[in-house]
């Protein structure tokens, strides 16, 4: 099999995943898209490993080993990711990432000439958030 087929396939997969990550609103779908991208990489790793092993005298098949490694990590990652999404959903009642913008820079402390005030306002906003998450 020519190297082009798996390469094209993995490129398509990656782009689908990328589109998903950038465009989907639902956090679960974003996580799934991340999985797609990871799998595209896995596919590439396996394909190139096979292609490179053909010419090599002896090989460690490090591409395939790395793929296994990635699968393991992806499993852990998706577990934790889904758990976080679940927790957020329970707290906020949504998993729409457009609405989860707590780290956005607001104009609260804009006139922070005065170190004191800035600290105080920052402290008060975090306190509000803590209340909201509880």
């Amino acid at each position, binding site marked *: 099999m020519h190297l082009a087929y798996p390469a094209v396939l993995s490129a398509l997969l990656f782009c689908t995943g990328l589109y998903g990550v950038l465009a989907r609103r639902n956090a679960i779908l974003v996580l799934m898209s991340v999985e797609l991208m990871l799998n595209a990489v896995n596919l590439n790793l396996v394909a190139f490993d096979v292609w490179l092993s053909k010419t090599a005298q002896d090989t460690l098949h490090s591409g395939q080993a790395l793929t296994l490694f990635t699968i393991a990590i992806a499993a852990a990652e998706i577990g934790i990711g889904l758990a976080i999404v679940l927790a957020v959903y329970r707290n906020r009642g949504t998993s729409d990432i457009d609405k989860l913008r707590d780290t956005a820079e607001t104009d609260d402390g804009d006139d922070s*000439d*005065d*170190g*004191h005030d800035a600290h105080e306002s920052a402290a008060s906003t975090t306190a509000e958030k803590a209340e909201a998450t509880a």
Partner: protein
Amino acid sequence: MVDINESVMQFLLAFIVVGPLLGAAAALLPAPPGLKGKSPEQAVLRHGVTVTGAVLIAAIVLTLGFDHDQPSKMQATTDISWIPALDVRVHLGTDGISLPLLVLTALLTFLCALYSYFKMPSGPTPKAFVALLLVLESGTLATFAVLDLLLFFLAFEMVLIPMYFLIARWGGEERQAAAWKFILYTLLGSVVMLLGLLLVGLKSGTFDMMALATDNGRSLTTSVQVIAVLAIGIGLAVKTPMWPLHSWLPDAHTAAPTVGSVLLAGVLLKMGTYGFVRILLPITPDGFRTFAPYLAAFAVVGIIYGSLACLALAKQGAKGDLKRLIAYSSVGHMGFVLLGIATMTPTGVNGALFANIAHGLITGLLFFLVGALKDRTGTTDLDTLAEKTGAALYGKAPRLGGLLAFAAVASLGLPGLAGFWGEMLALFGAFDPADDLSRPAFLTFMAIAAFGTLLTAAYMLIVVRRVCMGVAPQNSPGLADIQTYEFAAWTPLVALTVLAGLWPKALLGLTDPAVQQLLAGGTR
């Protein structure tokens, strides 16, 4: 005067510089048993008085041991290698130029510590206050005592941090903004200055001020000197402050606590002008000559500008703040100092050094008095104080009023008091500037500056009129007159103002030989 062993002198000078630093560290530790005093606050404030007092005594002994027949010679010198890779040395010494400044600093800090012992400014713990005060003292004294460019820079910078905290933590209204402005402005100036110092050091191969001064700029090309003077001069001019780099000063003074204002005006501003005399004049004479007319022009503008700003503040209905007014008057007075330096003549530089000391004494006293006025009336706003006709301080608190009038009169440069000789000599220097400076330009500067003294007199006397005179309402409560501790803190300043006015030789006898030597080719 008194014959003191050279190694003792070395120790004294080193103690003056390092002592306050050790004292600052000690102030942060808990008081040892036996010295606990009535309360931890009282103990630490007393510690501050003790340390500054010891430094003052050391400074006085140093003055006594100083060989007054050879004020142009560096005395009590210590020279230890510190960073060999950069050839930075711990080089200390004092001559007729720096000695008066050392004593003035030690005296003013002691008086401030004494004053705060009885009248602690409101703010956080006195422990930090005393420690900062001592660090400040150490930095200032080091600036006047070191003879190495990099060390000078370190000492110069060391002063900023404690001053920042003094303003930002113990100050009055709008202290945060004023403290920020103060530190950012002066730091920016210092950065430029550092570049200039490095340029001088790298081009000539040494950071040692004495070696550089003896060299008298011979190993530096004129273009290097010009750049170096521009860079170092800007840094020093910010500190002095020279118009138009002055705008941090009024804010800082208005917000600073009384003690902070006294030290800021009395001591910190002198570091800038001292740098001009000690570094720029002997080390880069050619470059300085290029800029001298411009420096003089800026100085003269500063004199007139500061006086006019004061007049605007003193006007009825202008909501002028007294501390702000005195700050602007400092801009004017430091203008005379800069004018004297810019003439590059012994007369002018002598006048500048004299005016330095006189300004420290008189403006220190003025800030003390205004602080006391604020404690009693709760305001430094002239309109609130004066109401319709005047605050009638002569009637309500005769001694305080009389002393304020005395300080105002001293500040306007009355002959017979300290303020006069500096201004007179600076003007006389400008009348006949160094040979290769433009005489017509300096004559014009002198004439304008001389009329500045008239404006100074005008605003000072308007202040006296609005604060000291006026109709006292029949049933108005009198104000508390001068307390014992205030008397103790102010008497030395008054006495020295009169002494320096009547016996100018006490200072000029020290500075003149040193200045002659400096201008003719460095110190020995």
